[in-house]
């Protein structure tokens, strides 16, 4: 075993009499290999442990409510009736709003950074986007409460209602904290990751593509659209799904601006609630066992959704990496 993993150069073992006399002990090597293997295997342990712990913590609730937990919308800790539908709805809708805002902006910025921008702008802009990614969620939430929400309430929201008030999505009174504000703050949080992953994808498009388009007389935009963006479609989709995964699990900033009311309302001006925010708000308040069980079940739902979305994203991004590598070789 040790021989097969060792580099070719030590495979030839004792060549000289001196080396034959003093064979090096293999104990250190074995121990170190096993130690590092154990550490590497923690990633499997972590996933299994998380799934097991969340399941373990919510068995009673799952037994009591079963599938109804996912499709009913009463959340009443006093009567011990728990249904997660408003939270699932809130998570999906706020993430969808975030994607609608962040995907076009993120991909356009990535295209700007790799294809369209003057060279001197690129590095500073990348650095600034990395800085945006480094802002802790709670600080964006603080800014959301005291700066973004008052501004949204005074300017864009009334304007949206005047324009689109005839649709159910932008009707009703404007409170401030609401589903739309939650979606916007999530969009800000996921923009850096969508932009930087999309940028990596676009950078991996072989130059031959661009050269061919320019050779045919394409303008910069035409080359970007025909030769780069359409070529990278699948990878960009992977970036979007990765962004979706982050959006679904975003916690602090959303909790601070979404209003935290478990309801399903068509109007985006109404407060909502997400899976992650109900955990953040109510976990320490869970006074009864069933309440805690229900919250563990919420955690399980969130874990299940995000793990599936992330699996999909990683699979998409990996196939891209492989195909673009083989294409580059050809």
């Amino acid at each position, binding site marked *: 075993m040790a021989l097969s993993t*060792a*580099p070719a*150069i030590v495979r030839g073992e004792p060549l000289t009499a001196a080396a034959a006399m003093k064979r090096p002990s293999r104990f*250190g*090597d074995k*121990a*170190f*290999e096993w130690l*590092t*293997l154990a*550490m*590497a295997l923690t*990633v*499997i342990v*972590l*996933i299994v*442990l*998380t799934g097991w*712990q*969340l399941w373990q*913590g919510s068995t009673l609730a799952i037994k009591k409510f079963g599938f109804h937990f996912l499709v009913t919308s009463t959340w009443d800790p006093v009567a011990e009736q728990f249904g997660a539908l408003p939270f699932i709805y809130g998570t999906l809708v706020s993430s969808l709003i975030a994607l609608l805002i962040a995907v076009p*902006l*993120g991909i356009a910025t990535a*295209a*700007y950074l790799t294809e*369209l*921008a003057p060279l001197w702008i690129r590095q500073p802009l990348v*650095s600034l*986007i990395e*800085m*945006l990614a*480094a802002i*802790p*969620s*709670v*600080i964006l*939430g*603080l*800014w959301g409460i*005291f*700066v973004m929400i008052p501004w949204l309430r005074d300017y864009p929201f009334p304007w949206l209602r005047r324009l689109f008030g005839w649709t159910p999505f932008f009707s009703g009174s404007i409170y401030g904290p609401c589903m739309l504000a939650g979606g916007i703050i999530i969009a800000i949080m996921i923009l*850096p990751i969508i932009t930087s992953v999309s940028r990596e994808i676009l950078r991996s498009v072989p130059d031959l593509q661009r050269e061919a388009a320019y050779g045919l007389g394409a*303008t*910069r*935009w035409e080359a*970007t659209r025909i030769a780069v963006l359409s070529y990278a479609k699948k990878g960009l989709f992977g970036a979007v799904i990765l962004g979706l*995964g982050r959006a679904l*699990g975003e*916690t602090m900033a959303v909790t601070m601006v979404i209003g935290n009311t478990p309801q399903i309302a068509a109007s985006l001006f109404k407060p909502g609630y997400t899976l992650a925010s109900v*955990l953040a708000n109510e*976990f320490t308040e869970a006074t009864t066992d069933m309440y805690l069980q229900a919250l563990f079940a919420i*955690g399980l739902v*969130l874990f299940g959704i*995000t*793990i599936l*979305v*992330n699996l999909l*994203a*990683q699979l998409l991004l*990996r196939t891209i990496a492989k195909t673009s590598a083989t294409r580059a070789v050809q």
Partner: protein
Amino acid sequence: MRFERAHNHTWRKIKNALAVGIAFGSGILVITPLGLVFFYLLNNGIGSVNWDFFTKLPAPVGALGGGMANAIVGTLQLLALAGVIGIPVGVLGGVYLAEYGSARLNSFLRFLADVLNGIPSITWGVVVYGLIVLRFKGFSAYAGGLALALIMIPLILRTTEEVILLVPNGYREAALALGVSRWKTIVHIVMKTASKGIITGILLALARIGGETAPLLFTAFGNRFWNHNLSEPIAALPLQVFTYAISPYDDWHRQAWAGALVLVTGVFCVNILVRILTRGRGASVA
């Protein structure tokens, strides 16, 4: 015919200019929140960052003044606890992925680590709550540190692996040819060569978890006083910012801004340090 072609050409140029303009606008829009957050942090926070802020405990409800000394120290303690668990596990795991293992097992582990990086941080809070807080009947600094460590592990694992793979094979072969054992080669030659990159990865992970709030809500829990015992609840800067931000008191809001400014300054200092460290990396490895 000629006119049409000229017209078509102009139209294409206009379209090109429009597209570049829109893409530029998107780039500006993406970084606008960064500018705004910075402006308001400085504007609302700088006045309250003073000597008291760094040296005093939070004032009781209703009283003005006080500081976040315990939260700043608490965050450092939590980072130390998380580092004690997260750094060795992450770094050694990364070493395995880069130096040992079959291609198939490694790509599977790498894949899982990437999936783990996308799991919401609050999940780790729930898991540690079930594992530690329920079992030992109480919130504690240990629980908070563990929750943060679990976030660190996949992050450090991946960055360590990447920088170790950058070390040229010639280094390993030279050491092995001199009769140095495999593990000593890895520790003394490979990891030493990649140490700058490994430290960069660790620093980035610390900066990331230093700002985490969600996993601490029901593990570290927060504390308005000094923590003298790590099996008791402990304060953390991001937790304190959250508590103060959603409180109804103006004086607490003022302090939340100050806390946020200090936290962001810390996170950005680490990021700038990383940038300085990585500037010469390509040269040193090659």
